Every structure is written in structure tokens, then in C-alpha cells.
């Protein structure tokens, strides 16, 4: 990659951070919600049968809550990357600046995604830290940091970039796809939960969940941070093979889908039209 490209990529990162900073109030408003979500959901996990029987023991458990966080933080990144990429792209289309961005010699998918990834990463760090700060006074969080977690973390980021590019490609063509976007988030959240052993899901659910972007990443994170297992085990939930296959499939699909959406929008003449 030439210096020219690196400069432009750094430029997009700077812009992404600039816009993330301009949304700091929104992030601050959202922040407590994530903590409240963990505090409310934590006591219910693994108590499906007693919940049905109407006898919930409303107590927070350190191990359960810690695992929940490891499931939830990747989802926050996914949310930050996919949802905010959609809204930001839509904003650029509405404003018309998208057309100026397309006058860059850089590949447009790179321009669209790169700045958002770094901004989403930093926003996720902030939100994760804030969530821990809110939850920790109620229940201790115990996660044994392990460098092996970097592999699933990187794969989660790449998969999220892939999905965000699919959504971005669709946005270039159809513009108003908020409902599709929200549905994708919900489905990914539900299916990725199957990677957390606290949650019992039917076998078909567990099998199907491998096809979704976060599931094996979360499974691999769980393996690295809470078990003695290895993230290089090829098969099983969070196995290396499904993790790599799914991640790179989503990334490739994202690049293809973005290019396709871009070609359709240019052919229709609607790239900058809302």
C-alpha cells in the first residue's frame, strides 16, 4: 500500500473519530442502557425452568455476568460498526458529500469502512469500560486476559466490517433500510448467544448459529478467556475452521455486495440521491 493510500486511510480514521466525538452525547446517553441491560438480563440466564415456574432468584452471579459481558462486548462493536455505518452513510447520501468522497482515487469500500472501524473500536472500548464501571459495583467481573483472545477479537471485527459493507451496499441502492438493519442486529444477537454455554438452545438453533457472523467469534473468545481450551481447535463452537470460514466469507461478501450496490446506484444515477 503506497504512502498516498496510507495518508488517505489515516484521513478516514480521523474523520470517523471526528464524527464519533460529535456523537459523544448520544454515546453517553446510551452507555447506562448497556449496563442496565446486563444487570437485568444476568439474573435470568440459566434459569429458564425456574422462570417458567415463576420462581426467579433475582441474584447476580459473578461468573454468569462476566460471561455475559464477553458475549455482549462483541455485540456492542457489531452494533457500533453496522448501525452507525448505516446512519453515517445515509447522512452522507442525504447531504451529498458521498459524491465528493467518490472523487477520491481510493477504492470507495475502503473509504467507507476504514474510518468507521477504528471509530467503532474506540467507541466500543469506551462503552465496554463504562458498562463494566456500571456493573462492577453490583457484581465483580472476572475475566482472565489471554493473548489468544486477540484472534477471535480480530475475526469479530472483520466479520462486522463484512456485514457493515453488505448493509452499506444495500443502503447505496435502497437508502431507507432501517428495518432490515434492525432485524439483522436482532438475529445476530440472538444467534450469537448460542455460543455462550449459559444459554440452552435447540440443536437446530446451535447448528444454524454457525452461519451468523459473531457466533464462532464469541465462542472462541469464551474458549480463550474462560476455559483451558485452545482457540486453534479446528471444530466445535468457536472452532478455528468455522471462525475463519465464516469471518472471511462475510468480509468477501461485504466487499462484493458493496461493489454491487455501488454499480447499481451508479447505473441508476442514484448514488447521491435520497
Amino acid at each position: 500500500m503506497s504512502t498516498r493510500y496510507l495518508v488517505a486511510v489515516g484521513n478516514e480514521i480521523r474523520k470517523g473519530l471526528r464524527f464519533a466525538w460529535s456523537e459523544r452525547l448520544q454515546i453517553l446517553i446510551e452507555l447506562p442502557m448497556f449496563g442496565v441491560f446486563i444487570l437485568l438480563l444476568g439474573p435470568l440466564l440459566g434459569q429458564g425452568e425456574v422462570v417458567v415456574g415463576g420462581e426467579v432468584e433475582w441474584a447476580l452471579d459473578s461468573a454468569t455476568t462476566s460471561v455475559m459481558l464477553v458475549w455482549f462486548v462483541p455485540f456492542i462493536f457489531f452494533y457500533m460498526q453496522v448501525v452507525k455505518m448505516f446512519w453515517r452513510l445515509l447522512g452522507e447520501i442525504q447531504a451529498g458529500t458521498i459524491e465528493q468522497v467518490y472523487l477520491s482515487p481510493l477504492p470507495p469500500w475502503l473509504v467507507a469502512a476504514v474510518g468507521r472501524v477504528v471509530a467503532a473500536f474506540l467507541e466500543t472500548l469506551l462503552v465496554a469500560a463504562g458498562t463494566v464501571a456500571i456493573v462492577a459495583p453490583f457484581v465483580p467481573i472476572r475475566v482472565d486476559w489471554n493473548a489468544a483472545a486477540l484472534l477471535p477479537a480480530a475475526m469479530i471485527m472483520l466479520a462486522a466490517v463484512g456485514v457493515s459493507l453488505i448493509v452499506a451496499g444495500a443502503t447505496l441502492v435502497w437508502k431507507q433500510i432501517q428495518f432490515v438493519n434492525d432485524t439483522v442486529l436482532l438475529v445476530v444477537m440472538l444467534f450469537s448467544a448460542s455460543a455462550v454455554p449459559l444459554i440452552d438452545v435447540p440443536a437446530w438453533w446451535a447448528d444454524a448459529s454457525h452461519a451468523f457472523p459473531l457466533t464462532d467469534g464469541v465462542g472462541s473468545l469464551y474458549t480463550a478467556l474462560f476455559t483451558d481450551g485452545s482457540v486453534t481447535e479446528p471444530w466445535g463452537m468457536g472452532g478455528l475452521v468455522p471462525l475463519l470460514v465464516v469471518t472471511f466469507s462475510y468480509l468477501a461478501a461485504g466487499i462484493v455486495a458493496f461493489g454491487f450496490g455501488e454499480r447499481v446506484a451508479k447505473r441508476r444515477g442514484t448514488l447521491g440521491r435520497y
Partner: protein
Amino acid sequence: MEAVLTENPASAGTAPGAAIELSGLGKAYGRGEHAFAAVRETTLSVPWGQVIGLLGPNGAGKTTTIKMICGLITPSTGSITLGGYDVARQRSHAVRQIGAVLEGSRNVYWPMSAWENLMYFGRLKGLRGSEVRPRARRLLTDLGLWERRHETVGSYSRGMQQKVAVAAALITDPPIILLDEPTLGLDVEAARTVKDWIAHLAADDGKTVVLTTHQLEVAQELSDRIAVIKEGEIIADLPTTELLARHAENRYEIRVAGSLDGNVGGLPAGARVEPDGSGTRVLLPDADSATVYAVLDQLAAADQQLVSVAQARPSLEAVFIRLLHHAGAAPTPEAGGEGTTP
């Protein structure tokens, strides 16, 4: 068609050949019964350093043409080269040749300051910060925005925002500038500033400029060449002076020193004689050359001292309206003044 219509030299550092080449360019939207041709078989060659005005009514295809040149809309037929680079096949090289201010767009980020915008767009096109800074400083100073460079563009007036958009288009010093309605919505003073700046770009910096505007006096003042588009087709394409000359009316004005004092008795029907300061003006509203010569002979015979003879030139607006209503007889250089498309 290779219609090299001006003698402007290519600006320094630009590639040989034409700055912009459109060859058989067409764009159709929709399919079947609903198909609509926005641009039809347009062929145009713009040499380096020329200012060409693309004029036409709303929906004529001007903006579609500009956006196809930018690579923002994919043509249905034909090809575009910018500085010799094919927009479809060599996009990254081609877009380095251009800066654009597009109609109806913000063009720049309103939540960012003018300075941040220029730095962003400079880097977006691959310049280093150290290369962008001095140029951004010069542009903002020249456009009178330096003192307010750190204020967000959203807080600027419409005219100032448009100046930032022009500056952003120029930040990499591209040889080709595309301006789609650059003075639209500006007040008189702001429009004048932008217009002067465009004139400066062409005259002093040797930029190739493609300009679309509904303000025909702006086009007439700035453009070396005018192409009139109607329903997606170029119906006239000539140097501005030649276009106006070809549409000159058979209306002549003869000025003589002193008064006529009844010395000319046989003026043609409809002629008017008016005092003009210390002299006299003879207006011939519908006269061919023979009639003009006959009147001049009479004046000479009466020992009237001739001051000037001039054929009345129509405004570009008058020519434009005439062309739109009589598209079949539109002039192009290749057709010797009687063609329909170049």
C-alpha cells in the same frame, strides 16, 4: 468530432491531447416503455485551458453529463477520458484530474470547519498534510475565509459555504474543474465573488473549466465556448463569440458626426434617425448588407462624416431561447453552422 475551438495553451504539466473527451456518450434510465434517454450520443472534445459552458433547460442532461464525467453515473454508451485517462477503466487516475462542485449538494461537511474540510479533501485525494496546508491557507485567504477558517461550515452563509466547496474542489490543484450551477442560490455579491474566481482560474491558472448555469450572463462572460443541450442532445457547440455572431440580427446602427439636416431622403422603410450626442444615429431594424451599403453611399454623397457601423449582437439569452425553439437549424463548427449535433 475533434472540435478544437480555442487557441488557449495547455496549462503547464497537463497531458497532451484534450482535457476532456466524450465519445458517443449516452445515458438511458429505465427499460422498455419507461426508458428515458437523459443524454444521447454526445461527442465533445474540450482542449486544455478552455472554459466551456454547458447550457440547457432543466432536465436537458447537463447534470447527468457532469456526473458521468466525474464517474458518479455509469454511461449506457460511449466513453469518457480525462487527461487521457479512461474514467471507466482508469478511475483512480481519471479522478485525480478533476475537482468538482456539484449542484444541490453540500459538497463539504457542515459539522467540520473550513480548514478541516480542506485538509480532509486534500488527504482524501492522496496529498500529505504538509502539501495540503499551504494550499489550504492560500485558498482560504484568497476567498476571504481565513479569519473564520476554524468555524464550522454549517455556521457560514450560503455564499461562504459555496466558497468552501470551490476551495475543496481546488485543494489538489486539479487541471480540470467541473462546476454544476456554482452560483445557484447565491446573493449578488457572493455570486460575483464566485464568478470572479472562476474567471481567475481560467485566465491566470489555465484551468479547464466545465460550467453549467442557468445564469446566461455568467456563462456569456466566462465561457470561451458554449454547448447548448436540449433533451440530451447537443444542439449547438461553438466559441461564444462565433455563436453570438452567427445569431447576429439584421439590425445595424450607423453613427455619423453632426446632424443629417434632411440630407438623406431615401432611407429604407422602418429606419429611424435619432440624435446621438453631437452626432446622429441611424437605426436600420431589418436590413441586409446591400441596404446598409446603399445607406452608406447616400451618407457619403451627402458628405456626412461616418463615425461607426455596427451590427447589433444578441445576448446569449436571446440566442439560447432561439436555439431551443429552432433546434433543427443549430450551428456547430463541423456542420458549418447548420448541423444538429457535433
